């Protein structure tokens, strides 16, 4: 191996921009969340119009509309086998839907406030949900029984996520805290951030479970190494002061961080270099949610009330 000069990474291929290919209009109120299924075949969207829609991600045709909630839906999650969707709603319940038939299979009751965020564990036998009642609940998928109630925060819980083996849960809240919980016992393992300001609006594990991407309501995204307790990267340039905007990792063609923004654009940053590589314009209101296809270079984004659309962006080949 040659000496010294081998430190430089090989020059990455030039960035190919994403462009808009479709706009899906089917919701009658703000869209709150979009997510691709784990196998990439389906796309689900939830809305304040109390329904969810399942789309085919190839043809982008709507396949079914999931009706049942009595209030708006804030978040949704796919099970690992892409068969079930769990939705979190302002009617204080969570519902598990069969994505193929569109039937509501189960209703999980227990929260005393709006349910704001939800996620399955990788084994998909547990669901974690965070709510305005300041608690996190872990539910057994098979029976619907609430396995843990964690008095997690002192303000609404904005985001919950399992890590890759389902052993720990990260939660973020308006009280400014980002905490890590043991999924088996419900005890707090670590507090990542405990400043009162700014509020933590979103938190999610990296694909390998070693890092946590945290969004705070001061226009900042940080990538934390949670075992060391320090953040390694900061991404700025977007606007995020009010809404709990979801962000995600794009790993299909180079490593990027993708996030929505209150200035109606979708931002993409290079993961390592932290520089913004593209700004996708087109929405007419805050982009509240973004999701990346697991295998193709495709991004879906959702806009709030003045927009109500889902836009699909594809990278040029």
């Amino acid at each position: 191996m040659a000496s010294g000069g081998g430190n430089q990474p090989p020059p990455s291929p030039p960035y190919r921009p994403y462009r808009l290919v479709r706009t899906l209009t089917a919701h009658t109120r703000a869209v709150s969340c979009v997510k691709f299924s784990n196998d990439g075949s389906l796309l689900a969207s939830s809305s304040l119009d109390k329904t969810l829609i399942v789309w085919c991600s190839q043809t982008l045709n709507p396949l079914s509309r999931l009706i049942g909630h009595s209030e708006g839906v804030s978040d949704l999650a796919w099970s690992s086998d892409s068969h079930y969707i769990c939705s979190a709603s302002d009617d204080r319940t969570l519902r598990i839907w069969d994505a193929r038939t569109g039937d509501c299979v189960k209703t999980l009751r227990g929260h005393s406030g709006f349910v704001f965020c939800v996620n399955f564990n990788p084994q998909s036998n547990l669901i974690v949900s965070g709510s305005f009642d300041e608690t996190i609940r872990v539910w057994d998928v098979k029976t619907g029984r609430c396995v843990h109630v964690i008095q997690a925060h002192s303000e609404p819980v904005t985001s919950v996520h399992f890590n890759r083996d389902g052993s720990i849960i990260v939660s973020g809240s308006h009280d400014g805290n980002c905490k890590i919980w043991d999924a088996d016992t419900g005890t707090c393992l670590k507090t990542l951030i405990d400043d009162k300001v700014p509020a933590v609006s979103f938190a999610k594990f990296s694909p390998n479970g070693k890092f946590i991407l945290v969004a705070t309501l001061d226009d900042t995204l940080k990538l934390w190494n949670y075992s060391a307790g320090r953040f390694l990267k900061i991404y700025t340039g977007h606007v995020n002061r009010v809404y709990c905007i979801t962000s995600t990792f794009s790993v299909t063609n180079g490593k990027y961080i993708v996030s929505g923004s209150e200035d109606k654009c979708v931002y993409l940053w290079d993961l390592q270099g932290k520089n913004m590589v593209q700004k996708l314009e087109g929405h007419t209101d805050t982009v509240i949610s973004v999701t990346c296809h697991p295998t193709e270079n495709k991004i879906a984004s959702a806009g709030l009330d003045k927009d109500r659309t889902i836009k699909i962006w594809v990278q040029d080949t």
Partner: protein
Amino acid sequence: MNVPIIDPLQGDFPEVIEEYLEHGIMKCIAFNRRGTLLAAGCSDGSCVIWDFETRGIAKELRDNDCVAPITSVCWSKYGHHILVSATDKSLTLWDVVNGEKITRTTLQQTTLHARLHPNSSTPSVCLACPLSSAPIIVNLNTGSTTVLPVSVSEAGAGTVLPSRNKFSDGSPPFTPTAACFSKNGDLIYVGNSKGEILIIDYKNIQVHGMVPVSGAAVIKNIVFSRNGRYLLTNSNDRTIRVYENLLPLKDGARALSELYSTMDELQGVDKLKAVGSKCLVFFREFQDSVTRIHWKAPCFSGDGEWVVGASASKGEHKIYIWDRAGHLVKILDGPKEALTDLAWHPVHPIVVSVSFSGVVYIWAKDYTENWSAFAPDFKELEENEEYVEREDEFDLMPETEKVKESDINEDEEVDIMTVEKDSSFSDSDISVEELCFLPAIPCPDVPEQQDKYIGSSSKLVDSNHSGSPLSEEGAQNGQVTNPASSPVEAIDNSIAEDTGAARLKRKRKPSEKGLELQAEKGKKPKPLGKVKSSGKSSKSKNKSAVGQDNGVSVSANGATD
């Protein structure tokens, strides 16, 4: 688990009963390789697979042909198959994923312990230890059996035994023999009634080594640790002995046969003893010299650091935990009924024990929150640390703050994709897909409760005393199924489907009283707890009220935290 922030001291031992699982009368248990599923053999011939993470039932393996109580349960290495032995002398091999019987063999005698060959993904060979004769290797596909030698002495193999090997209650001795595979499956270690460990090569069924256990008492159990480095024997002289395995883990049989062939100068028993002394070396022994109790179901912890054994005395549920150096570290005291089986979780410091009444108790550490978890820069100190302040500690010098920020090297590459291998499962064969969990299919909510009461109650009243329809109803949600239950109870079963939460309790720190109450619950007919909660739901008219019940009872549980 390779999550760095979970306290490494979790490799400790359990202390209190965390929870108990009830479903029929369970007799024996086995964890799968990763400890995500727990299989339990029941007295009605079925085998229940619990999802250990949700503490709910994942699957039930039931065969109407076999209704005899199960004596042992064993997982295949990668979790695709389960071998079950029952008192009707049969051995049944099940496919876990589709819940179907693959094959069934009937032997001459009931098997007490059946073990699948450890090193194949589609095992068809197993080791069966019958009630009172030599262990046999059974080929489940062909049904052929091979009897293993249990004795090496020329004189009187297995005839009259010296009187000290009689069981303590004076019953005529038979020759129970314990046996187990080595970690790789190429060697079989047999513990016979003369107190000798025979090391047998699996391929040619020849005894290549022999280790006499001091005390020469009947060996009741012989078990390897998960990493294959330690072997323990449980003898009739009330002592558990731990041996260190000197043979290499990968090619043990070859090393053994090499040892055997090099010892040319010795013959017969002496040669075997000499070879044996090179394979196993005595490490420690454990006994309770005060109460002199017999041991039952001894085993190692997942990492081999702890040895656990249960008291075989009837009427008490005591579990002793020793560290490998021989010190007794804990005695777990359960409800006052005999213990039938014991297992240590492969990864976590959790012990699972089965009581005589068929209830499975889960023992875990008494979790106390680590206070340093609540603030990012808190660090827990073991002892007081002397802190010497800097000269300028209390001066107003704002520049020192800025120095901290630049510590972070923001240009370092961050890898978000590579996953580290889990060291505790380093012998995983990547080509075989391991079955870690069964897909959790949500049970559909019952749409209308009212109609169901009327319909199902008449059905259940008719088939009052037959086991199957009741257990099918209850089986879905892991309910208690008592075949002799009254009709009232049976109706409560179906009503309480949603409020199944009441059955599986989660207790953190049960006091003595709490354990007594649990034991009482085990003895009395179940309805006490259930009628209370289902009383509420029988008054409810629609689904949402029942759901709220769920919420109420659950939040009550939560509040006790």
